[in-house]
C-alpha cells in the first residue's frame, strides 16, 4: 500500500491521520520533499496510478483512491 502525498497538503495529512489512527501499515512519499530525479521518478509513478497526477493518491492492492475519500478508504480497508 503506497500513498503519494505532499507534506504541505491538508487532505494528504487527513489521509495519513486516518491510516495512523487505525494502525494501518503503509508506505508514503512526500513528493514535494523529493528533488531532481527522485521527484521526476515519483511523479511518473504517481501518473501511472492517477494520470492527473493529483494528491493524495493511494494504491491499495489493485485499487487507486484519489483525493481524501474517507468513505472509500474505510470501505477498502474495512475500518
Amino acid at each position, binding site marked *: 500500500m503506497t500513498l503519494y502525498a*505532499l*507534506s*504541505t*497538503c*491538508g*487532505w*494528504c*495529512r487527513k489521509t495519513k491521520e486516518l491510516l495512523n489512527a487505525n494502525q494501518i501499515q503503509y508506505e508514503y512519499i512526500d*513528493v*514535494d520533499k523529493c528533488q531532481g530525479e527522485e521527484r521526476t521518478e515519483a*511523479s511518473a509513478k504517481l501518473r501511472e496510478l492517477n*494520470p*492527473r*497526477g*493529483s*494528491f*493524495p493518491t493511494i494504491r491499495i492492492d489493485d485499487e487507486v483512491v*484519489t*483525493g*481524501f*475519500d*474517507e468513505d472509500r478508504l474505510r470501505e477498502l480497508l474495512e475500518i
Partner: protein
Amino acid sequence: MNKEERFSDEVLKTYERLNKEAEEGGYHLNPDKDFTLRLVQGLLENERRYGYWCCPCRLAFGDKEKDLDVICPCYYRDSDLEEFGACYCALYVTDEWIAGSKKHGSIPERRPAKFMREGYSETPPPQSLAPNPQPLSYPVWRCKVCGYLCARPEPPGKCPVCKAEKDRFERFM
C-alpha cells in the same frame, strides 16, 4: 498546551493578515483553525522553496510562469467556491460550507490536465461580443483571480479585492 503554540509567530501573523483580507474581500478562511494554520505554514514553506505561494495541495514546477494559475489565491478558487463551497485545498470556504450544507472533503481538480503536465500557459482573453463603439480612454485590466476590473494605464500593483499581484492581471478591453 495550547495547540497554536506549535505554530511560529510568522504563521500566526500571516494567518491573521489573510483572515482580515479575506473578510474584507467577502471571503472566509476555513474555520478549522488548526487545518488552516497548517495550510498557511505550507504556503510559507512554498515561499521559501520557490519564492511564491504555490497552492499547498499542488506540486509546484518551481517556475513561476508555469505555476502562475495555482499561486494562492488560485485562478480556480472562485469557481470551486461556487460549485463546492471550498477551494481545492480548503483554505477558502463559503458560508454554506461552514453551515454544513456542502460536503466537506477533497474536491475534483479543476486545473486543466495540460497545465498539470506542462504548466500554465496564457490563453487569449475572450473576444468582446461587439466591437467597441469608440476607442477607450484607458485600457481595462482584469484580475484573473477574482475578476476585478479597472480602467487605468497599467494594472494595479496588487488587486484591491483579492491581493493578487500585478502579473496576474490580463488586458480585458
